[in-house]
């Protein structure tokens, strides 16, 4: 007997499915705000789904639903049992289940965003869950954070430094952050933004459009 199309247990494979984009970063850096901004910017031109990994219950999912940037049914919340990094790195089963549920219900989709629960600098997404990942820092954590590195800062496909509007107030030097990030990231892109001022996070959205286009090109939909 072989796997049939009625069950929910297909192995991950890039063909005929959406790009899965992980968004991680420390608590309060603006992950949920970035997800909302991307939904605002990309919603009109892309078929989207969002999976949130809350530390507490469904707060982030509820925020996104209230923000009205995406159809509420297209947001699923995953609970992580006190361990947000486990759910995106070591045991991704519940997140994969949520991603595939969205694709089954609303597919075909162009992009599924998986937002991690706020965690520390070592938390990164498993390649079994996210095809690409963004790591979000904010300037109020201090301008030393990029220099300290950690897998999130060094390995993410895109590093976003948010809340640049606060830099003068917290004494963070954006030039230092930019130079240090470039050093540890081996040429991978870094974008500075203030989502409070740019509600659509347009520079990030433009980068996402680029990777989604490349993904489509590489894995044409067969659905």
């Amino acid at each position: 007997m072989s796997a049939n199309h009625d069950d929910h247990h297909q192995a991950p494979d890039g063909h005929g499915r959406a790009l899965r984009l992980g968004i991680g970063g420390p608590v309060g850096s603006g992950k949920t705000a970035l997800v909302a901004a991307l939904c605002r910017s990309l919603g009109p031109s892309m078929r989207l789904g969002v999976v949130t990994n809350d530390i507490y219950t469904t707060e982030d999912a509820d925020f996104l639903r209230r923000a009205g940037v995406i159809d509420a049914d297209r947001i699923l919340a995953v609970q992580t049992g006190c361990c947000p990094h486990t759910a995106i790195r070591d045991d991704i089963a519940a997140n994969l289940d949520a991603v595939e549920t969205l694709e089954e219900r609303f597919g075909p989709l162009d992009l599924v965003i998986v937002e991690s629960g706020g965690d520390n600098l070592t938390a990164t997404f498993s390649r079994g869950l996210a095809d690409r990942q963004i790591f979000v820092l904010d300037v109020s954590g201090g301008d030393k954070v990029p220099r300290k590195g950690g897998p999130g800062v060094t390995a993410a496909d895109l590093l976003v430094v948010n809340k640049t509007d606060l830099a003068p107030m917290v004494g963070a030097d954006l030039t230092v952050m930019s130079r240090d990030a470039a050093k540890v990231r081996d040429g991978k892109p870094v974008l500075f933004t203030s989502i409070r001022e740019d509600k659509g996070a347009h520079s990030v959205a433009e980068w996402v459009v680029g990777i989604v286009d490349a993904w489509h090109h590489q894995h044409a939909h067969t659905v």
Partner: protein
Amino acid sequence: MHGDMAMLLLADSRLPAGGHAHSGGAEEAVRVGAITGPEDLARFLRGRLATAGVVTAALAAAACELGADPAQERWRRLDAEADARISSPAQRDASRTQGRLLVRTTRRIWPSEALDSLAAAVPDGAHHPVALGAAAAAAGCEPRQAALAAAYTSVTAPATAAVRLLGLDPVLVHRLLADLAPALNDAAHEACVIQADDWSSLPAHAAPALDLLAEQHLRTEVRLFVS
């Protein structure tokens, strides 16, 4: 055979099948003050093992036996036996969610007819012990090994959750788990006494407090665990 190794993998909390997000009622018990420290936790675990643990072990053993010669209609019947033993809708949902994730994961680790036929027979997710037994069969375990893995995870999940939620000394909590070794063996033994063709008489121990905790948990606004 490779049953011993497979049993260890299935019982390991690091098995990537979503188990880390379930507390087996411990989160709500902590919230309502029914578990406040190691003594309460020991009584919680002992009672859980003697009720839900024995039932889950028995269903896993039966599923493991069925996995040797699987048939979709038989999977549905065994799954219905699990349904009849879980009166709380919240617990049935949690059990099916865990079962679905376990099948997803173990089908990639141990591709087999046992797991394919279970996934086809119960596409929205078989009950967790049924899925565990099927995975054990796929991995080459004996029913007794499936029962042990099921009984073991029925107490390790809430124990780990209590460590995280109450900041208990993890060494002390592991000592509590070690103290359960004889009860764990008894549970696995009880699980395997019944003949495979007589699922109706499989153990069906109820835990009314767990049912109430599971239903209350769903109504609690701030939750870290799925169940």
